[in-house]
C-alpha cells in the first residue's frame, strides 16, 4: 500500500517535471532567434525597399526630342551612358552565343543549339524568335535599352510603323496623329529604371512560344506573385525584382546556364560582399538552418531548391510534352487548334500534340551547375531518347548536389542518314507554319545553319531539362524528411549512393536488429533477475 502511494507520488512528480520541461522548451522556442541563414538574408535585404534612383529621366534634354526610329532613342541613351552599348554587345542577351563553347560549332540560340520546343532559332534567321532579342531589329540595328529598362508597356514597333505611315500618307490629320504618337514614344522613353519582373518576364515568362511553355518555374504568374507562390518575389512580402539575385556587372547578368555553371563559388556575402548573389547561399549561407539541425548537414549534397520548391507551375500550367510528329493535320484544308482541360492547346496543326500540367512534382538529378547539350551539328543515337539538355554531375562529383528539374519530353525531327537533329525553319512566308511542308522547312533550316540534310527525316524521342529555382515556397511548405527518406520517396529513382530510410544495407540491418534485440534481451533478463531475487533483499 505504502509502495503504491510512493509510486503515485513519483508518477505525478515525473509528469509535472515533463510538463515544466515542455513549457520551458516552448518558451525558448518562441524566443529563440530565427535560423542564422534567415537572419543573414534579412540583413542582406535591409534598405532594399528604398528607391535607389537618383535621376528623373523625364528632365533630360536628349530624351525630349521627337524620335522617328528606335535607334534614335538608343543614341539618346548612350549620349550619357557612353559604355552601355559596347557592354551589351558582349553579353549573351546580344550575342545569343555561349562564349565557352567550341567557336567552330558555337552553342546558343544564334548558334547550333536546339531544344524540343520550337527547336531552333536558325542562326537568328527565324524572325519570330528574334522578337525576343534586345536589339531594335535583332542584331541588325542598335540595342533597344528599353527592352530591359523601359518602365512603361509601350509598343514601339507599332508606334514607329504608324509614324512612318502617317509621315508618308499626306493625310490632313496626319500631323496631329504623328504628334500624339511622338508624345507617347518620348513619354515611354523617359520612363526608365532598373529592370522589373515584367521587363525580364516579357521574354523569359513566354520562352518557347507562350506563357509557361519552357520553364516550369517562370511564367506570368510571377509578374505579381504572392508570398505563397514565391517567398522572395511575393508582392505581399519582400517583393524582389529579378535583379535582386541576378546581379549585374557591365550588363553581364548572373544566372545563365549553358556548359558553365551560373556560379562557381559557393560563398556568402560575409565571405565576399562584392560577389554575385545568384546562389541561395549568397544570402542564406551554407548553414541556413538553426544550429545543430540535421538539415544543415544536407547542404553539401542537396540543393536548397530540392526541399523548398515542392512543386512548380503552381499557378499556371506548363508544357510537359510536345510531339512534332503529329503536326500538319488539317480540317477542311485549314489548320486548327484543340484546347485541353487546363485551357491550353492540346493540339495545334502548326505545332503538333502537347500535354500540359499544373502543380508538378520535380524530378531530381545530380547537378554540378553545368548542362550537357546536344546541338544540330552533333551525332545522336536515335535508338534511345536523345538528352538534348541534361545535367552534369553524379553522387561522386564533389560539386554536384541533388537538384529539382522540369524534364520536358517530346518527339522532334532528325535526319536518319546523318544521325543529327534537324532544325526546321518554322515562321515566315516559307516556314513550316505557313507551308506545312516539312521537306522545305528542313532544307531552309539546314541552309541557315550551313549543315547537311540528306532529304530523309523521322522523329525521335527527346528530353530537355530545366533547373527549377524560382517559385520558392514558404518554409512551412518545404518538404519533410519523409518525402525523400522513404522507400517510395521523391528520390526513389536516384541511384549511386546510400540514403537512410530509402536504401537497405543487409549487414547494417542485421547489426541494427541485433543491437535492438540484444538491448531488449538484456533489459528483460535484468528485470527478470530483479523480480526473481526481490525476496532475498526483503529478508535481509
Amino acid at each position, binding site marked *: 500500500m505504502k509502495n503504491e502511494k510512493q509510486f503515485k507520488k513519483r508518477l505525478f512528480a515525473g509528469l509535472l517535471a515533463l510538463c515544466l520541461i515542455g513549457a520551458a522548451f516552448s518558451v525558448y522556442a518562441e524566443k529563440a532567434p530565427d535560423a542564422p541563414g534567415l537572419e543573414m538574408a534579412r540583413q542582406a535585404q535591409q534598405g532594399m525597399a528604398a528607391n535607389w534612383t537618383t535621376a528623373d529621366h523625364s528632365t533630360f534634354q536628349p530624351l525630349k526630342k521627337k524620335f522617328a526610329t528606335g535607334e534614335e532613342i538608343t543614341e539618346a541613351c548612350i549620349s550619357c551612358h557612353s559604355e552601355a552599348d559596347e557592354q551589351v554587345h558582349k553579353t549573351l542577351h546580344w550575342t545569343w552565343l555561349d562564349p565557352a563553347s567550341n567557336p567552330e560549332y558555337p552553342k546558343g540560340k544564334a548558334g547550333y543549339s536546339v531544344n524540343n520546343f520550337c527547336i531552333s532559332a536558325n542562326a537568328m534567321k527565324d524572325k519570330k524568335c528574334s522578337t525576343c532579342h534586345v536589339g531594335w531589329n535583332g542584331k541588325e540595328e542598335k540595342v533597344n535599352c528599353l527592352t530591359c529598362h523601359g518602365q512603361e508597356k*509601350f*509598343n514601339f514597333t*507599332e508606334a514607329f510603323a*504608324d509614324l512612318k505611315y*502617317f509621315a508618308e500618307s499626306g*493625310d490632313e*490629320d496626319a500631323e496631329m*496623329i504623328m504628334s*500624339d*504618337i511622338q508624345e507617347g514614344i518620348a513619354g515611354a522613353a523617359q520612363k526608365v529604371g532598373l529592370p522589373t519582373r515584367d521587363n525580364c518576364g516579357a521574354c523569359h515568362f513566354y520562352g518557347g512560344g507562350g506563357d509557361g511553355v519552357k520553364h516550369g518555374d517562370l511564367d506570368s504568374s510571377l509578374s505579381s506573385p504572392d508570398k505563397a507562390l514565391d517567398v522572395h518575389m511575393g508582392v505581399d512580402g519582400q517583393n524582389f525584382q529579378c535583379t535582386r539575385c541576378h546581379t549585374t556587372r557591365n550588363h553581364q547578368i548572373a544566372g545563365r546556364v549553358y556548359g558553365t555553371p551560373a556560379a562557381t563559388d559557393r560563398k556568402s556575402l560575409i565571405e565576399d560582399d562584392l560577389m554575385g548573389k545568384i546562389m541561395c547561399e549568397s544570402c542564406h549561407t551554407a548553414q541556413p538552418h538553426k544550429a545543430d539541425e540535421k538539415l544543415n548537414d544536407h547542404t553539401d549534397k542537396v540543393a536548397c531548391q530540392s526541399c523548398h520548391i515542392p512543386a512548380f507551375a503552381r499557378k499556371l500550367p506548363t508544357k510537359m510534352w510536345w510531339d512534332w510528329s503529329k503536326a500538319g493535320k488539317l480540317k477542311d484544308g485549314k489548320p486548327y487548334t484543340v484546347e485541353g482541360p487546363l485551357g491550353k492547346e492540346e493540339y495545334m496543326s502548326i505545332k503538333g500534340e502537347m500535354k500540359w500540367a499544373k502543380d508538378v512534382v520535380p524530378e531530381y538529378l545530380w547537378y554540378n551547375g553545368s548542362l550537357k547539350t546536344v546541338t544540330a551539328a552533333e551525332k545522336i543515337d536515335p535508338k534511345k531518347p536523345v538528352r538534348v539538355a541534361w545535367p552534369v554531375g553524379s553522387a561522386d562529383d564533389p560539386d554536384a548536389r541533388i537538384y529539382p528539374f522540369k524534364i520536358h519530353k517530346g518527339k522532334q525531327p532528325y535526319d536518319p542518314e546523318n544521325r543529327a537533329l534537324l532544325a526546321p525553319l518554322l515562321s515566315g512566308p516559307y516556314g513550316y507554319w505557313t507551308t506545312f511542308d516539312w521537306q522545305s522547312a528542313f532544307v531552309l533550316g539546314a541552309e541557315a545553319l550551313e549543315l547537311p540534310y540528306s532529304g530523309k527525316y523521322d522523329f525521335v524521342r527527346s528530353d530537355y531539362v530545366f533547373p527549377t529555382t524560382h517559385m520558392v515556397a514558404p518554409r512551412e511548405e518545404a518538404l519533410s524528411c519523409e518525402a525523400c527518406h522513404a522507400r517510395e520517396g521523391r528520390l526513389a529513382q536516384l541511384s549511386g549512393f546510400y540514403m537512410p530510410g530509402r536504401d537497405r544495407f543487409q549487414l547494417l540491418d542485421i547489426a541494427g536488429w541485433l543491437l535492438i534485440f540484444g538491448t531488449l534481451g538484456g533489459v528483460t533478463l535484468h528485470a527478470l533477475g530483479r523480480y526473481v531475487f526481490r525476496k532475498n533483499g526483503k529478508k535481509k
Partner: protein
Amino acid sequence: MRKLILIIVAALFAIVSVAPAFAFEKGNERKGKYTYRKVYQACNDRGAIESAKPAVNPDDKTQSQWTRIFEKSDFAGTFGCEEEWKALSQDDLADIYAYLHDHAADSPSPAKCK
C-alpha cells in the same frame, strides 16, 4: 400617278439597298486606332472612367458583331463614354469601325488595345 408611285418605290429601293453600304463603309484603320484611344483618353480625363486604356478590345467581338454594333449605332451601350462618342464625326466612326472590324476575333489579325 402610276409613274410617280414607280419613281417613289424605285427611289426607296435604291436608298434601302445603298444605305447599308454607306453605313458600313470602312475608313482608315490606322487613324481609327488612334481616334478610338482618344475617345477613352478624353473620357478618362473628365473622370468618367478609371483607365484611359480602352476597356473593349477589337478581338472581344467578331467582325459581324462589330458590323451590327455600328449598324445600330449602339456606341454608349457597348463602349460607355456617350459624350465622346456623340462628338465623333461620321469619318471618325468609319475609321474606328475599320480598326475594330479588321482586328476582330475572327479576323486574320486579332488585336488587343495596347
